[in-house]
Protein backbone atom coordinates (compact mmCIF):
# COMPACT_ATOMS: atom_id res chain seq x y z
CA UNK A 1 0.00 0.00 0.00
CA UNK A 2 1.29 3.43 -0.94
CA UNK A 3 2.16 5.72 1.95
CA UNK A 4 1.94 9.44 2.49
CA UNK A 5 4.97 10.71 4.38
CA UNK A 6 4.13 13.60 6.68
CA UNK A 7 7.73 14.75 7.16
CA UNK A 8 7.01 15.26 10.86
CA UNK A 9 9.95 14.37 13.10
CA UNK A 10 9.38 10.82 14.34
CA UNK A 11 5.88 10.48 12.87
CA UNK A 12 6.78 8.50 9.76
CA UNK A 13 8.78 6.09 11.94
CA UNK A 14 5.76 5.77 14.21
CA UNK A 15 3.60 4.76 11.23
CA UNK A 16 6.35 2.58 9.68
CA UNK A 17 6.78 4.79 6.63
CA UNK A 18 3.82 7.15 6.58
CA UNK A 19 0.04 7.04 6.49
CA UNK A 20 -1.68 4.73 4.01
CA UNK A 21 -2.66 6.96 1.11
CA UNK A 22 -6.31 7.87 0.64
CA UNK A 23 -7.24 6.84 4.14
CA UNK A 24 -9.40 8.80 6.55
CA UNK A 25 -7.59 9.52 9.78
CA UNK A 26 -9.15 11.02 12.89
CA UNK A 27 -6.81 13.20 14.93
CA UNK A 28 -8.43 13.08 18.34
CA UNK A 29 -7.50 14.74 21.60
CA UNK A 30 -8.34 17.37 24.14
CA UNK A 31 -7.99 21.11 23.32
CA UNK A 32 -4.32 22.14 23.16
CA UNK A 33 -3.05 18.61 22.67
CA UNK A 34 -1.37 19.44 19.33
CA UNK A 35 -3.87 18.03 16.80
CA UNK A 36 -4.12 21.15 14.64
CA UNK A 37 -0.35 21.66 14.75
CA UNK A 38 0.20 18.10 13.53
CA UNK A 39 -2.29 18.59 10.70
CA UNK A 40 -0.93 21.99 9.63
CA UNK A 41 2.69 20.88 9.80
CA UNK A 42 1.86 17.94 7.53
CA UNK A 43 0.20 20.34 5.07
CA UNK A 44 3.26 22.61 4.93
CA UNK A 45 5.64 19.67 4.60
CA UNK A 46 3.59 18.33 1.68
CA UNK A 47 3.54 21.82 0.16
CA UNK A 48 7.35 21.75 0.07
CA UNK A 49 7.00 18.73 -2.25
CA UNK A 50 4.47 20.59 -4.39
CA UNK A 51 1.50 18.64 -2.98
CA UNK A 52 -1.77 20.40 -2.27
CA UNK A 53 -3.82 20.51 0.91
CA UNK A 54 -7.33 21.80 1.43
CA UNK A 55 -7.96 22.99 4.99
CA UNK A 56 -11.63 23.33 5.90
CA UNK A 57 -12.54 25.06 9.12
CA UNK A 58 -15.96 24.46 10.59
CA UNK A 59 -17.42 26.24 13.60
CA UNK A 60 -15.04 25.70 16.50
CA UNK A 61 -12.25 28.15 15.76
CA UNK A 62 -12.19 31.02 13.26
CA UNK A 63 -9.85 30.33 10.37
CA UNK A 64 -7.99 33.63 10.83
CA UNK A 65 -7.16 32.65 14.41
CA UNK A 66 -5.90 29.21 13.40
CA UNK A 67 -3.67 30.70 10.72
CA UNK A 68 -2.34 33.36 13.10
CA UNK A 69 -1.25 30.78 15.67
CA UNK A 70 0.26 28.50 13.06
CA UNK A 71 2.28 31.36 11.57
CA UNK A 72 4.48 31.35 14.68
CA UNK A 73 5.94 27.97 13.70
CA UNK A 74 9.02 27.78 11.51
CA UNK A 75 7.29 25.33 9.12
CA UNK A 76 4.75 28.02 8.19
CA UNK A 77 5.55 29.76 4.93
CA UNK A 78 3.02 32.17 3.47
CA UNK A 79 4.23 31.58 -0.09
CA UNK A 80 2.34 28.27 -0.07
CA UNK A 81 -1.01 29.85 0.79
CA UNK A 82 -3.23 29.88 -2.28
CA UNK A 83 -0.65 27.89 -4.22
CA UNK A 84 -0.34 24.56 -2.38
CA UNK A 85 -2.42 25.28 0.71
CA UNK A 86 -6.03 26.35 0.38
CA UNK A 87 -8.29 27.47 3.21
CA UNK A 88 -12.06 27.34 3.24
CA UNK A 89 -14.51 28.29 5.95
CA UNK A 90 -17.74 26.30 5.72
CA UNK A 91 -19.47 27.66 8.84
CA UNK A 92 -22.05 29.36 6.60
CA UNK A 93 -22.94 26.06 4.95
CA UNK A 94 -23.19 24.34 8.32
CA UNK A 95 -25.81 26.87 9.40
CA UNK A 96 -28.05 25.57 6.61
CA UNK A 97 -28.01 22.23 8.45
CA UNK A 98 -28.15 20.19 5.26
CA UNK A 99 -25.51 17.44 5.00
CA UNK A 100 -26.11 17.12 1.25
CA UNK A 101 -25.13 20.77 0.76
CA UNK A 102 -21.91 20.23 2.73
CA UNK A 103 -21.04 17.13 0.73
CA UNK A 104 -21.73 18.93 -2.50
CA UNK A 105 -19.52 21.84 -1.45
CA UNK A 106 -16.65 19.58 -0.35
CA UNK A 107 -17.02 17.75 -3.66
CA UNK A 108 -16.87 21.02 -5.53
CA UNK A 109 -13.72 22.09 -3.65
CA UNK A 110 -12.00 18.77 -4.25
CA UNK A 111 -12.73 18.87 -7.97
CA UNK A 112 -11.46 22.44 -8.12
CA UNK A 113 -8.32 22.12 -5.98
CA UNK A 114 -7.44 18.42 -6.36
CA UNK A 115 -5.72 18.19 -2.99
CA UNK A 116 -3.53 15.34 -1.81
CA UNK A 117 -4.65 16.02 1.76
CA UNK A 118 -7.92 17.30 3.20
CA UNK A 119 -8.07 18.64 6.74
CA UNK A 120 -11.42 19.26 8.42
CA UNK A 121 -10.98 21.10 11.71
CA UNK A 122 -13.02 20.66 13.81
CA UNK A 123 -14.78 17.58 12.53
CA UNK A 124 -16.47 17.04 15.86
CA UNK A 125 -18.08 20.50 15.71
CA UNK A 126 -19.21 19.77 12.17
CA UNK A 127 -20.94 16.59 13.34
CA UNK A 128 -22.45 18.22 16.41
CA UNK A 129 -23.94 21.05 14.39
CA UNK A 130 -25.13 18.99 11.48
CA UNK A 131 -26.68 15.80 12.75
CA UNK A 132 -29.66 15.09 14.92
CA UNK A 133 -29.80 11.44 14.09
CA UNK A 134 -27.15 8.71 14.01
CA UNK A 135 -28.65 7.40 10.78
CA UNK A 136 -28.01 10.61 8.85
CA UNK A 137 -24.56 10.97 10.38
CA UNK A 138 -23.60 7.45 9.39
CA UNK A 139 -24.79 8.02 5.82
CA UNK A 140 -22.87 11.30 5.62
CA UNK A 141 -19.67 9.71 6.94
CA UNK A 142 -19.95 6.77 4.63
CA UNK A 143 -20.51 8.97 1.58
CA UNK A 144 -17.75 11.39 2.50
CA UNK A 145 -15.12 8.72 3.16
CA UNK A 146 -16.09 6.84 0.00
CA UNK A 147 -15.88 9.98 -2.12
CA UNK A 148 -12.53 10.90 -0.59
CA UNK A 149 -11.03 7.50 -1.36
CA UNK A 150 -12.36 7.61 -4.92
CA UNK A 151 -11.02 11.12 -5.42
CA UNK A 152 -7.74 9.84 -3.95
CA UNK A 153 -7.57 12.24 -1.07
CA UNK A 154 -6.01 11.41 2.29
CA UNK A 155 -7.91 13.15 5.05
CA UNK A 156 -7.44 14.32 8.61
CA UNK A 157 -10.62 14.77 10.60
CA UNK A 158 -9.49 16.83 13.56
CA UNK A 159 -11.65 16.86 16.67
CA UNK A 160 -11.72 17.46 20.40
CA UNK A 161 -12.58 13.88 21.18
CA UNK A 162 -11.85 12.11 24.43
CA UNK A 163 -11.15 8.41 24.83
CA UNK A 164 -14.75 7.83 25.89
CA UNK A 165 -15.95 9.35 22.57
CA UNK A 166 -13.86 6.86 20.63
CA UNK A 167 -15.96 4.01 21.99
CA UNK A 168 -19.32 5.56 21.18
CA UNK A 169 -19.07 7.94 18.20
CA UNK A 170 -19.64 6.23 14.86
CA UNK A 171 -17.01 8.28 13.01
CA UNK A 172 -14.39 6.10 14.71
CA UNK A 173 -15.74 2.93 13.17
CA UNK A 174 -15.81 4.53 9.72
CA UNK A 175 -12.28 6.00 10.02
CA UNK A 176 -9.30 4.06 8.70
CA UNK A 177 -7.05 5.46 11.39
CA UNK A 178 -7.34 6.96 14.86
CA UNK A 179 -4.48 8.98 16.29
CA UNK A 180 -4.95 10.11 19.85
CA UNK A 181 -2.97 12.98 21.38
CA UNK A 182 -3.06 13.58 25.10
CA UNK A 183 -1.20 15.06 28.03
CA UNK A 184 -0.43 13.77 31.49
CA UNK A 185 0.68 15.40 34.69
CA UNK A 186 3.66 13.56 36.15
CA UNK A 187 5.15 14.99 39.32
CA UNK A 188 3.96 18.51 38.42
CA UNK A 189 5.27 18.19 34.90
CA UNK A 190 3.10 18.21 31.85
CA UNK A 191 4.04 15.58 29.30
CA UNK A 192 2.57 15.05 25.87
CA UNK A 193 1.90 11.68 24.29
CA UNK A 194 0.67 10.43 20.95
CA UNK A 195 -0.80 7.00 20.39
CA UNK A 196 -2.09 5.27 17.30
CA UNK A 197 -5.21 3.35 18.21
CA UNK A 198 -6.02 2.08 14.73
CA UNK A 199 -4.38 2.26 11.32
CA UNK A 200 -5.85 0.09 8.59
CA UNK A 201 -3.40 -1.11 6.00
CA UNK A 202 -0.26 -0.39 7.96
CA UNK A 203 1.72 -1.62 10.90
CA UNK A 204 2.73 0.96 13.49
CA UNK A 205 4.55 1.41 16.79
CA UNK A 206 2.25 0.29 19.56
CA UNK A 207 1.71 2.18 22.79
CA UNK A 208 2.03 5.80 23.78
CA UNK A 209 4.97 7.81 22.49
CA UNK A 210 6.35 10.98 24.04
CA UNK A 211 6.27 14.13 21.94
CA UNK A 212 7.02 17.79 22.25
CA UNK A 213 5.82 20.90 20.45
CA UNK A 214 8.70 23.23 19.67
CA UNK A 215 8.92 26.36 17.54
CA UNK A 216 9.80 24.00 14.67
CA UNK A 217 6.66 21.96 15.19
CA UNK A 218 6.01 18.49 16.53
CA UNK A 219 8.83 16.17 17.54
CA UNK A 220 7.98 12.59 18.43
CA UNK A 221 10.49 10.52 20.37
CA UNK A 222 9.69 6.87 19.86
CA UNK A 223 9.74 4.53 22.82
CA UNK A 224 13.01 2.70 23.00
CA UNK A 225 12.36 -1.02 23.34
CA UNK A 226 14.77 -3.92 23.74
CA UNK A 227 15.57 -5.41 20.38
CA UNK A 228 15.84 -8.98 21.57
CA UNK A 229 16.89 -10.40 18.21
CA UNK A 230 19.80 -8.04 17.97
CA UNK A 231 21.19 -8.63 21.44
CA UNK A 232 24.71 -9.88 21.01
CA UNK A 233 27.65 -10.50 23.18
CA UNK A 234 30.58 -9.64 20.97
CA UNK A 235 33.87 -10.68 22.38
CA UNK A 236 36.82 -8.46 21.65
CA UNK A 237 40.34 -9.55 22.44
CA UNK A 238 41.44 -5.95 22.48
CA UNK A 239 42.02 -4.58 25.94
CA UNK A 240 42.31 -0.98 26.97
CA UNK A 241 44.87 -0.32 29.66
CA UNK A 242 43.65 2.04 32.35
CA UNK A 243 47.12 3.30 33.17
CA UNK A 244 46.72 1.97 36.71
CA UNK A 245 48.55 -1.34 36.79
CA UNK A 246 46.64 -2.72 39.77
CA UNK A 247 43.27 -2.08 38.13
CA UNK A 248 44.42 -3.67 34.88
CA UNK A 249 45.58 -6.72 36.79
CA UNK A 250 42.28 -6.95 38.69
CA UNK A 251 40.45 -6.76 35.33
CA UNK A 252 42.54 -9.63 33.99
CA UNK A 253 44.42 -7.37 31.59
CA UNK A 254 42.37 -4.23 31.05
CA UNK A 255 38.94 -3.05 29.95
CA UNK A 256 37.67 -5.11 27.06
CA UNK A 257 36.80 -3.07 24.01
CA UNK A 258 33.11 -3.05 23.08
CA UNK A 259 32.05 -4.04 26.59
CA UNK A 260 29.60 -2.44 28.99
CA UNK A 261 31.04 -1.81 32.44
CA UNK A 262 28.80 -1.12 35.39
CA UNK A 263 30.38 0.89 38.20
CA UNK A 264 28.27 0.54 41.28
CA UNK A 265 28.66 2.25 44.64
CA UNK A 266 27.24 4.68 47.18
CA UNK A 267 27.29 8.47 46.98
CA UNK A 268 30.69 10.19 47.05
CA UNK A 269 32.68 6.96 46.68
CA UNK A 270 34.29 8.00 43.36
CA UNK A 271 32.17 6.45 40.61
CA UNK A 272 32.44 9.59 38.47
CA UNK A 273 36.21 9.79 39.06
CA UNK A 274 36.68 6.18 37.92
CA UNK A 275 34.57 6.94 34.83
CA UNK A 276 36.65 10.02 34.02
CA UNK A 277 39.79 7.89 34.35
CA UNK A 278 38.34 5.27 32.02
CA UNK A 279 37.45 8.02 29.53
CA UNK A 280 41.07 9.21 29.57
CA UNK A 281 42.32 5.62 29.08
CA UNK A 282 39.95 5.01 26.20
CA UNK A 283 41.00 8.19 24.41
CA UNK A 284 44.71 7.51 24.94
CA UNK A 285 44.40 3.94 23.63
CA UNK A 286 43.81 5.02 20.01
CA UNK A 287 44.10 8.41 18.35
CA UNK A 288 40.87 7.73 16.43
CA UNK A 289 38.86 7.12 19.57
CA UNK A 290 36.15 9.51 20.64
CA UNK A 291 34.29 9.68 23.92
CA UNK A 292 30.85 11.00 24.88
CA UNK A 293 30.33 11.67 28.57
CA UNK A 294 26.63 12.03 29.45
CA UNK A 295 26.24 13.57 32.84
CA UNK A 296 22.93 13.85 34.64
CA UNK A 297 24.26 15.20 37.90
CA UNK A 298 27.38 17.29 37.44
CA UNK A 299 27.97 20.10 34.99
CA UNK A 300 30.77 19.73 32.44
CA UNK A 301 32.68 22.56 34.17
CA UNK A 302 32.77 20.63 37.43
CA UNK A 303 33.78 17.42 35.73
CA UNK A 304 36.67 19.18 33.99
CA UNK A 305 37.74 20.68 37.34
CA UNK A 306 37.72 17.23 38.99
CA UNK A 307 39.79 15.81 36.18
CA UNK A 308 42.31 18.68 36.40
CA UNK A 309 42.65 18.30 40.17
CA UNK A 310 43.40 14.61 39.78
CA UNK A 311 45.87 15.17 36.95
CA UNK A 312 43.78 13.38 34.33
CA UNK A 313 44.79 14.61 30.90
CA UNK A 314 41.46 15.37 29.31
CA UNK A 315 41.88 18.92 28.05
CA UNK A 316 43.72 18.08 24.80
CA UNK A 317 40.91 15.69 23.89
CA UNK A 318 38.28 18.35 24.61
CA UNK A 319 40.16 20.82 22.41
CA UNK A 320 40.37 18.29 19.56
CA UNK A 321 36.67 17.47 19.85
CA UNK A 322 37.50 13.92 20.81
CA UNK A 323 35.81 14.25 24.17
CA UNK A 324 32.41 15.79 24.60
CA UNK A 325 30.58 16.34 27.87
CA UNK A 326 26.82 16.47 27.53
CA UNK A 327 24.78 17.59 30.49
CA UNK A 328 21.17 16.43 30.50
CA UNK A 329 18.63 17.26 33.14
CA UNK A 330 16.77 14.10 34.04
CA UNK A 331 14.09 15.92 35.99
CA UNK A 332 12.19 17.80 33.35
CA UNK A 333 12.37 15.38 30.50
CA UNK A 334 10.96 12.10 29.45
CA UNK A 335 13.13 9.00 29.46
CA UNK A 336 12.36 8.40 25.78
CA UNK A 337 13.66 11.88 25.02
CA UNK A 338 16.82 11.27 27.08
CA UNK A 339 17.48 7.99 25.28
CA UNK A 340 16.83 9.66 21.96
CA UNK A 341 19.42 12.36 22.80
CA UNK A 342 21.99 9.76 23.79
CA UNK A 343 21.42 7.65 20.68
CA UNK A 344 21.38 10.74 18.46
CA UNK A 345 24.78 11.88 19.77
CA UNK A 346 26.24 8.38 19.43
CA UNK A 347 24.95 7.97 15.86
CA UNK A 348 26.42 11.36 14.96
CA UNK A 349 29.78 10.47 16.50
CA UNK A 350 29.95 7.01 14.97
CA UNK A 351 30.49 3.44 16.10
CA UNK A 352 33.40 2.54 18.29
CA UNK A 353 32.80 5.55 20.52
CA UNK A 354 33.42 5.40 24.25
CA UNK A 355 30.35 6.27 26.31
CA UNK A 356 29.78 7.23 29.92
CA UNK A 357 26.35 7.48 31.51
CA UNK A 358 26.70 9.12 34.88
CA UNK A 359 24.42 7.98 36.33
CA UNK A 360 21.56 5.71 35.34
CA UNK A 361 20.15 6.20 38.81
CA UNK A 362 19.20 9.71 37.66
CA UNK A 363 17.09 8.18 34.89
CA UNK A 364 14.77 7.19 37.65
CA UNK A 365 13.67 10.79 38.07
CA UNK A 366 12.13 10.82 34.64
CA UNK A 367 10.53 7.41 34.85
CA UNK A 368 8.53 6.16 37.77
CA UNK A 369 7.35 2.99 36.15
CA UNK A 370 9.67 0.10 37.12
CA UNK A 371 8.98 -2.06 34.08
CA UNK A 372 9.40 0.86 31.69
CA UNK A 373 12.63 1.90 33.43
CA UNK A 374 14.13 -1.57 33.16
CA UNK A 375 12.97 -1.92 29.55
CA UNK A 376 14.68 1.36 28.75
CA UNK A 377 17.96 0.40 30.42
CA UNK A 378 18.01 -2.91 28.58
CA UNK A 379 17.32 -1.17 25.29
CA UNK A 380 20.03 1.39 25.80
CA UNK A 381 22.64 -1.14 26.83
CA UNK A 382 21.65 -3.30 23.92
CA UNK A 383 22.06 -0.30 21.63
CA UNK A 384 25.62 0.22 22.98
CA UNK A 385 26.42 -3.38 22.19
CA UNK A 386 25.29 -3.44 18.61
CA UNK A 387 26.84 0.00 18.00
CA UNK A 388 30.13 -1.45 19.23
CA UNK A 389 30.49 1.16 21.94
CA UNK A 390 32.66 0.73 24.98
CA UNK A 391 30.37 1.96 27.71
CA UNK A 392 30.75 2.86 31.36
CA UNK A 393 27.62 3.19 33.43
CA UNK A 394 27.49 4.35 36.99
CA UNK A 395 24.84 3.20 39.40
CA UNK A 396 24.30 4.62 42.86
CA UNK A 397 23.37 2.30 45.70
CA UNK A 398 21.57 3.76 48.68
CA UNK A 399 23.28 2.07 51.63
CA UNK A 400 26.90 3.36 51.94
CA UNK A 401 28.01 0.34 53.98
CA UNK A 402 25.66 -2.28 52.57
CA UNK A 403 26.71 -5.42 50.77
CA UNK A 404 23.85 -5.35 48.29
CA UNK A 405 25.96 -3.42 45.84
CA UNK A 406 24.98 -4.78 42.48
CA UNK A 407 22.04 -3.31 40.71
CA UNK A 408 20.25 -6.65 40.69
CA UNK A 409 16.77 -5.25 41.16
CA UNK A 410 16.72 -3.99 37.58
CA UNK A 411 18.63 -6.99 36.23
CA UNK A 412 21.01 -4.61 34.48
CA UNK A 413 23.92 -6.69 35.72
CA UNK A 414 22.84 -9.35 33.21
CA UNK A 415 23.58 -7.06 30.29
CA UNK A 416 26.79 -5.69 31.80
CA UNK A 417 29.99 -7.40 30.71
CA UNK A 418 31.93 -6.09 33.67
CA UNK A 419 30.88 -5.02 37.14
CA UNK A 420 33.02 -3.04 39.52
CA UNK A 421 31.76 -2.33 42.99
CA UNK A 422 33.02 0.49 45.12
CA UNK A 423 32.11 0.58 48.79
CA UNK A 424 32.88 2.19 52.12
CA UNK A 425 34.03 0.16 55.07
CA UNK A 426 34.86 0.95 58.63
CA UNK A 427 38.45 0.63 59.80
CA UNK A 428 38.10 2.38 63.11
CA UNK A 429 38.57 5.28 63.54
CA UNK A 430 38.38 5.80 59.74
CA UNK A 431 35.97 5.21 56.90
CA UNK A 432 37.89 3.72 54.01
CA UNK A 433 37.04 2.87 50.41
CA UNK A 434 37.29 -0.54 48.77
CA UNK A 435 37.18 -1.78 45.22
CA UNK A 436 36.30 -5.23 43.92
CA UNK A 437 35.68 -6.67 40.50
CA UNK A 438 32.55 -8.82 40.55
CA UNK A 439 32.36 -9.84 36.93
CA UNK A 440 34.37 -9.62 33.73
CA UNK A 441 32.74 -11.60 30.96
CA UNK A 442 35.22 -14.02 29.39
CA UNK A 443 38.09 -13.17 31.69
CA UNK A 444 39.74 -14.60 34.72
CA UNK A 445 39.53 -11.46 36.82
CA UNK A 446 40.79 -10.87 40.31
CA UNK A 447 38.59 -11.81 43.27
CA UNK A 448 40.38 -9.44 45.63
CA UNK A 449 38.95 -6.60 47.66
CA UNK A 450 41.41 -3.72 47.63
CA UNK A 451 41.47 -0.48 49.47
CA UNK A 452 41.69 2.59 47.26
CA UNK A 453 41.93 6.31 47.67
CA UNK A 454 41.47 9.39 45.53
CA UNK A 455 44.31 11.83 45.98
CA UNK A 456 44.55 15.34 44.57
CA UNK A 457 47.31 15.64 41.98
CA UNK A 458 47.70 11.86 41.80
CA UNK A 459 44.31 10.41 40.96
CA UNK A 460 43.18 6.92 41.92
CA UNK A 461 45.60 5.04 44.17
CA UNK A 462 45.04 1.31 44.66
CA UNK A 463 46.27 0.18 48.02
CA UNK A 464 46.67 -3.10 49.89
CA UNK A 465 44.25 -5.98 50.17
CA UNK A 466 41.45 -5.54 52.66
CA UNK A 467 42.11 -8.36 55.06
CA UNK A 468 39.16 -7.95 57.37
CA UNK A 469 35.73 -9.21 56.46
CA UNK A 470 33.70 -6.25 55.18
CA UNK A 471 30.88 -8.12 53.48
CA UNK A 472 29.21 -9.42 56.64
Amino acid sequence: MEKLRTGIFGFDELTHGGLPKYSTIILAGSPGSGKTTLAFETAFNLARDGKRTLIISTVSEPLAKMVRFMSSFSFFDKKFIGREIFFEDISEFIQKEDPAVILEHIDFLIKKIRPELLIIDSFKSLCENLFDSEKIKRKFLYTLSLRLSIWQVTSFFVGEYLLSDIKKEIEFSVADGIIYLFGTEEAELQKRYIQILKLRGSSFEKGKQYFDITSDGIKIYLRLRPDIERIRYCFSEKEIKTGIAEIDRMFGGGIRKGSVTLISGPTGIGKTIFTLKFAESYLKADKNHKFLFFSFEESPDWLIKYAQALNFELEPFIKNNKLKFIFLSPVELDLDYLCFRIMYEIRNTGEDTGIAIDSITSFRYSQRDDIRYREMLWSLMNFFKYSNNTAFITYEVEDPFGVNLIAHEMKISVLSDSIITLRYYEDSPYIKRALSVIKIRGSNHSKEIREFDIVEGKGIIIKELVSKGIMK
Partner: protein
Amino acid sequence: MDKEKSRLIVLIKESLNEISMYIGTSALKVVLERIFFDLSVYNPAWEHIEISDPEEVDFSKFSIEELKKFYHMLVDIVGNILGDEFKKELLRKAKKEE
Protein backbone atom coordinates in the same frame (compact mmCIF):
# COMPACT_ATOMS: atom_id res chain seq x y z
CA MET B 1 -16.41 -0.96 -34.87
CA ASP B 2 -13.02 -2.55 -35.04
CA LYS B 3 -12.26 -5.75 -33.18
CA GLU B 4 -9.83 -4.30 -30.68
CA LYS B 5 -12.27 -1.60 -29.60
CA SER B 6 -15.06 -4.13 -29.22
CA ARG B 7 -12.87 -6.35 -27.06
CA LEU B 8 -11.89 -3.35 -24.94
CA ILE B 9 -15.51 -2.35 -24.39
CA VAL B 10 -16.38 -5.90 -23.38
CA LEU B 11 -13.47 -5.90 -20.93
CA ILE B 12 -14.60 -2.58 -19.44
CA LYS B 13 -18.22 -3.74 -19.12
CA GLU B 14 -17.21 -7.03 -17.49
CA SER B 15 -14.91 -5.24 -15.10
CA LEU B 16 -17.56 -2.67 -14.15
CA ASN B 17 -19.98 -5.51 -13.54
CA GLU B 18 -17.48 -7.27 -11.29
CA ILE B 19 -16.53 -4.06 -9.43
CA SER B 20 -20.19 -3.25 -8.76
CA MET B 21 -20.51 -6.62 -7.03
CA TYR B 22 -17.77 -5.60 -4.61
CA ILE B 23 -18.48 -1.91 -4.01
CA GLY B 24 -22.12 -1.52 -5.06
CA THR B 25 -23.69 0.54 -7.82
CA SER B 26 -23.75 3.89 -5.99
CA ALA B 27 -20.03 3.78 -5.18
CA LEU B 28 -19.32 2.72 -8.75
CA LYS B 29 -21.24 5.75 -9.98
CA VAL B 30 -18.94 8.00 -7.90
CA VAL B 31 -15.91 6.23 -9.39
CA LEU B 32 -17.24 6.82 -12.92
CA GLU B 33 -18.14 10.41 -12.10
CA ARG B 34 -14.57 11.02 -10.98
CA ILE B 35 -12.99 9.35 -14.04
CA PHE B 36 -15.31 11.15 -16.45
CA PHE B 37 -14.52 14.44 -14.73
CA ASP B 38 -10.78 13.89 -15.25
CA LEU B 39 -11.14 12.67 -18.82
CA SER B 40 -13.40 15.59 -19.77
CA VAL B 41 -10.35 17.82 -19.57
CA TYR B 42 -9.14 16.14 -22.80
CA ASN B 43 -12.52 15.42 -24.37
CA PRO B 44 -15.66 17.26 -23.14
CA ALA B 45 -17.81 14.40 -24.43
CA TRP B 46 -16.95 12.40 -21.28
CA GLU B 47 -18.72 14.98 -19.15
CA HIS B 48 -22.07 14.29 -20.75
CA ILE B 49 -22.19 10.54 -20.36
CA GLU B 50 -25.28 9.16 -18.68
CA ILE B 51 -24.28 7.12 -15.61
CA SER B 52 -27.59 6.32 -13.95
CA ASP B 53 -26.88 2.67 -14.79
CA PRO B 54 -23.09 2.07 -14.88
CA GLU B 55 -23.51 -1.16 -16.83
CA GLU B 56 -25.34 0.60 -19.62
CA VAL B 57 -22.76 3.34 -20.21
CA ASP B 58 -22.16 3.92 -23.91
CA PHE B 59 -18.41 3.81 -24.60
CA SER B 60 -18.68 3.39 -28.35
CA LYS B 61 -17.97 7.02 -29.24
CA PHE B 62 -14.50 7.05 -27.65
CA SER B 63 -11.20 6.10 -29.19
CA ILE B 64 -9.15 3.06 -28.22
CA GLU B 65 -6.58 5.31 -26.56
CA GLU B 66 -9.26 7.02 -24.49
CA LEU B 67 -10.77 3.70 -23.48
CA LYS B 68 -7.36 2.43 -22.41
CA LYS B 69 -6.87 5.57 -20.36
CA PHE B 70 -10.29 5.05 -18.79
CA TYR B 71 -9.48 1.46 -17.90
CA HIS B 72 -6.19 2.36 -16.28
CA MET B 73 -7.82 5.05 -14.18
CA LEU B 74 -10.52 2.59 -13.18
CA VAL B 75 -7.91 0.03 -12.14
CA ASP B 76 -5.98 2.62 -10.16
CA ILE B 77 -8.95 4.01 -8.23
CA VAL B 78 -10.59 0.65 -7.58
CA GLY B 79 -7.21 -0.76 -6.58
CA ASN B 80 -7.03 1.88 -3.86
CA ILE B 81 -10.43 0.87 -2.57
CA LEU B 82 -10.27 -2.91 -2.90
CA GLY B 83 -6.55 -3.47 -2.54
CA ASP B 84 -3.55 -4.44 -4.63
CA GLU B 85 -4.72 -8.00 -5.35
CA PHE B 86 -7.87 -6.78 -7.04
CA LYS B 87 -5.83 -4.23 -8.99
CA LYS B 88 -3.47 -6.95 -10.21
CA GLU B 89 -6.42 -9.11 -11.24
CA LEU B 90 -7.88 -6.31 -13.37
CA LEU B 91 -4.49 -5.69 -14.97
CA ARG B 92 -4.08 -9.41 -15.68
CA LYS B 93 -7.45 -9.42 -17.50
CA ALA B 94 -6.40 -6.47 -19.60
CA LYS B 95 -3.12 -8.13 -20.53
CA LYS B 96 -4.96 -11.29 -21.58
CA GLU B 97 -7.13 -9.27 -23.93
CA GLU B 98 -4.14 -7.67 -25.66
